[in-house]
């Protein structure tokens, strides 16, 4: 595996194909939890955690259960169940092991189950790293990388957005644009800026 592929995945997931700003995945939490910086950080951490491990789990399930049994068409149902039970499990473990972490991430975990970014990354992993029903060499590592940096990209967008929205609270935004519409316009301009990385080739 060479550095080029890894760097390309990083830039692609964080900037070019940023989940929120270019694929529109996870827009609901992006708009909902971006009012202040502190919760945005917690939410971001939770998303990175869940995305990475869900990516890993679903890859294993797909590779060693669905593919050999010829149940590929059940992908959607199985993945959503895997994610939901994983989140549920993670919530219980964190509550037991680290109440402090639970207080920081706790309320965000259930929200993540229905976060389309998580299901999105798992489906995307399968679409990119399986060709004609065969896993690409190194697919597991690439999957982990792609899932992790998709989470980083989401968190970056969320953090920038939270900083901007905190500042916009003080601005005299036209009444009909306040709240969700101006958030969309900010997202549009951020996505415009991120397009500078289009055509990235290492």
């Amino acid at each position, binding site marked *: 595996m060479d550095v080029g592929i890894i760097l390309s995945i990083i830039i692609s997931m964080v900037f070019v194909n940023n989940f929120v700003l270019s*694929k529109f995945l996870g*827009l609901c939490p992006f708009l909902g939890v971006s009012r202040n910086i502190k919760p945005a950080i917690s939410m971001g951490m939770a998303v990175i955690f869940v995305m990475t491990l869900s990516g890993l789990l679903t890859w294993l399930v797909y590779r060693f259960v669905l593919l050999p049994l010829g149940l590929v068409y059940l992908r*959607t149902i199985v993945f*959503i169940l895997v994610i939901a039970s994983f989140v549920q499990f993670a919530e219980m473990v964190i509550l037991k092991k680290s109440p402090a972490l639970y207080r920081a991430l706790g309320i965000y975990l259930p929200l993540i189950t*229905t976060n389309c970014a998580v*299901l999105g990354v798992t489906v995307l992993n399968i679409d990119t790293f399986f060709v004609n029903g065969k896993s690409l060499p190194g697919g597991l590592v690439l999957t982990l990388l792609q899932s992790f940096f998709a989470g980083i990209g989401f968190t970056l967008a969320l953090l920038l957005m939270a900083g901007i929205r905190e500042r916009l609270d003080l601005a005299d935004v036209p009444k009909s644009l306040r709240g969700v*519409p101006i958030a969309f*316009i900010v997202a549009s*301009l951020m996505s415009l800026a991120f397009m500078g990385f289009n055509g990235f080739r290492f």
Partner: protein
Amino acid sequence: MDMKKTLKEFTKGILRENPVFVIALGLCPTLAVSVSLENALGMGLAASFVLLFSNLLISAIRNIVPARIRIPCFIVVIASFVTIVELLMAAFSPQLARQLGIFVPLIVVNCIILGRAESFASRNTVFLSVLDGLGMGLGFTLALSLIAVIREFLGSGKILGHVLFESFPPATIMILAPGALLTMGLLIGLINLITSRNKG
């Protein structure tokens, strides 16, 4: 049950409680597939199908399902219908399936569908839930189509793939991500402006 109230359950989803513009739900598919009117109609149809049948089934089983595990049950119901749509679409319109790509399986996590299941279908009769599902589906499809028409016209100079008139070089940005977010923001702003004017 009087006729007027029944009708209201149907029409509310189209205007007053439009899932996309007013409640700002179900945004991911809205923006991603609104590149062209054709995609938007396909997605609208698929989501409406899932919405209708999941509302129907969930309201039918609402008294059997224990309250504590209702959400996982709803998700399984929804995911099953999404899988049916996925398979139907791949069989009858493979081209559309390819264009919508990842966003067909993602109907599962569309907040509109789980939202309606939780807030309406699990508390109302089958008949009302079906009406609600139809209305919400129609509202969703209309909103999606509105965004798609604007983006397709400005971004590729066409409507439904047909060139109307050759007047200006299309602004590619409108069919890319920033154009989608911008259209959405300005449309919601416009709707806010109109509703605040109407209220006086």
